[in-house]
């Protein structure tokens, strides 16, 4: 359902080997469970089987997070338009996935809603174009805002509350091999009832704020530092508080290409 636009191409090599199985234990009599393994190792707790798809998505994120060091990984969504990528780094609950889904439903290309992969060699952001995971209230909000998109069933009682996934647009999937140039770094914050407020963020602050939350950044050493400074140099940085999606989308629509030569005073 969510991966219908993806093609299966295999010459026999796979990056990750994930397995979700129903354990054949007594537990299934009163509650069906699913256990998962990565690379045939299973350090994970079993979960109720109706959460299987959410488990799969989490496990795939976890696989990428724990084994990928050839990219700098930013925890955040990234969308692209007219050749420039807008990166929305944020902790859970800040509304980055909501904003990402809304932008994607209004013509922005989806690169990722969770793991932004920056290549230290090229400075470009690779696309994953995987399903967008929406949580709690934002599920209803998005279904009302973008009824033309395809949403999965609500999955209740996960670690993150209720989750539903939105299918990535076909066009984003078709272009998943096109990397994008970083254009804007926007720290979103959803605040109920707030008017749309945008504050330009000095690059030094943007750097400190972004680097403090990156999981694989310390491991990359000097290469990570160079990739991150390059990214910050390339982007216009903002703090962005919003509650109204229409206003938010309109502001994004009016974004000017980043001014590369701006030097911080």
């Amino acid at each position, binding site marked *: 359902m969510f991966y219908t636009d993806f093609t299966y191409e295999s010459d*026999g090599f796979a990056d990750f080997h994930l397995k979700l199985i129903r354990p054949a234990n007594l537990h299934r009599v009163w509650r069906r469970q699913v256990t998962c393994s990565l690379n*045939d*190792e299973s350090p*994970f707790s079993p979960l109720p089987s109706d959460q299987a798809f959410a488990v799969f998505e*989490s496990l795939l994120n976890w696989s990428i997070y724990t084994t*990928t*060091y*050839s990219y700098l990984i930013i925890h955040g969504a990234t969308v692209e338009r007219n050749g420039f990528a807008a990166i929305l780094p944020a902790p859970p609950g800040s509304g980055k996935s909501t904003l990402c889904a809304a932008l994607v439903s209004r013509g922005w290309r989806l690169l990722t809603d969770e793991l932004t992969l920056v290549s230290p060699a090229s400075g470009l952001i690779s696309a994953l174009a995987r399903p967008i995971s929406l949580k709690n209230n934002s599920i209803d909000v998005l279904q009302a805002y973008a009824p033309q998109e395809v949403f999965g069933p609500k999955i209740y009682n996960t670690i993150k509350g209720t989750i539903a996934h939105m299918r990535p647009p076909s066009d984003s999937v078709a272009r998943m091999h096109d990397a994008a140039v970083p254009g804007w770094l926007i720290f979103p914050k959803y605040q109920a009832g707030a008017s749309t407020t945008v504050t330009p963020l000095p690059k030094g602050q943007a750097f400190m704020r972004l680097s403090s939350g990156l999981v694989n950044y310390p491991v990359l*050493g000097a290469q990570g530092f160079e990739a991150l400074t390059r990214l910050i140099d390339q982007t216009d940085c903002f703090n962005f508080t919003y509650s109204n999606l229409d206003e938010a989308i309109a502001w994004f629509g009016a974004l000017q290409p980043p001014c590369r030569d701006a030097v911080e005073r």
Partner: protein
Amino acid sequence: MKLEPIIECALTQPQTLAQISASQWDRLLQSARRLGLLARIQALLAEHDLLDAVPDQPRMHLESARIVADNEQRIMRWEVSRIQRALRGLAKPVIFLKGAAYLISGLSVAKGRISTDIDILVDKADLDSVEAALLKHGWEHTKVDEYDQFYYRIWSHELPPLRHRERRTIIDVHHTILPLTGRCHPDPKKLLAEAITLDGSQFKILAPADMVLHSAAHAFQDGDLVRGLRDLVDLDDLLRHFGAEASFWDRLLERGQDLDLTRPLYYALRYTSLILHTPVPMAVLEQAKKFAPARLAGLMMDRLVIHAVNDRLSGWRRSLQAFSSWALYIRQHWLRMPPFLLARHLMHQMWRPQKLRTDLG
């Protein structure tokens, strides 16, 4: 005594990897990851200038493994420098062991080798002052449990592990290389006497033969091959490196007897040459035979070792493998302590809380 062919090729003839198919890469990377040898294989490929022949996808994973290993080694070098700073004032000999020693002496065994803890060996008379100096410089005790403190200080060959309160790195301070309660009793004075100084300072590493014997003792006497194939890969590399000098082999045999480590030496020579084709001279293997265990014990050990160094088997052979790792665990404790002490220790360990699983979020 066989490894999975693809792993054997990668470790002993990396040049053959230039021709393998995508599905063989798939198999190799999965196994290597489980065995903890991904970075090692990357290093071997790099050494043979073969990385360009690796298809993009597997190369990305190998590159990731290299980045992780480089980072661990960077952290370890820094940690060594911090330990040297903390202990310099004591002006007592401090010997770096295992991973830290390999790294700071630039030995090829360090290539792609990941180890996080640092082990040092000091004279028993200096133990208190070394512990005090480390505590003063930010290290703390991790074992606050009374039984653990008691266990380490009375029966063990090391202080309870210390962790730095900011960097979270662990240091094990040894006063000898095997537990006091065990069967073999290498004299630490002899190790200290032969240790090689680094840049003329009080900081040292073990002499070549001693380094091999320590690695062997750790794999076959004090450990239950818990690092699996990685233990053999270490021994293989050390033997190849030091064995290039002909006088090394006689010294190794002589020193093995000197240090009461003949049995682990026998196992090291037997299993590296059988499993990783380490070029141990025939005469040396022949001489080492007098250190072999009784025939039945030897046969059993062969089965246990081959299971321990192989990647996870499938089907019914998996339970056999699980049994072997359990048997090695029991064997290790058996070698480590007399029966009464062992029973007491295992009883205590049984009541500990089980380790927690990861919750996917």
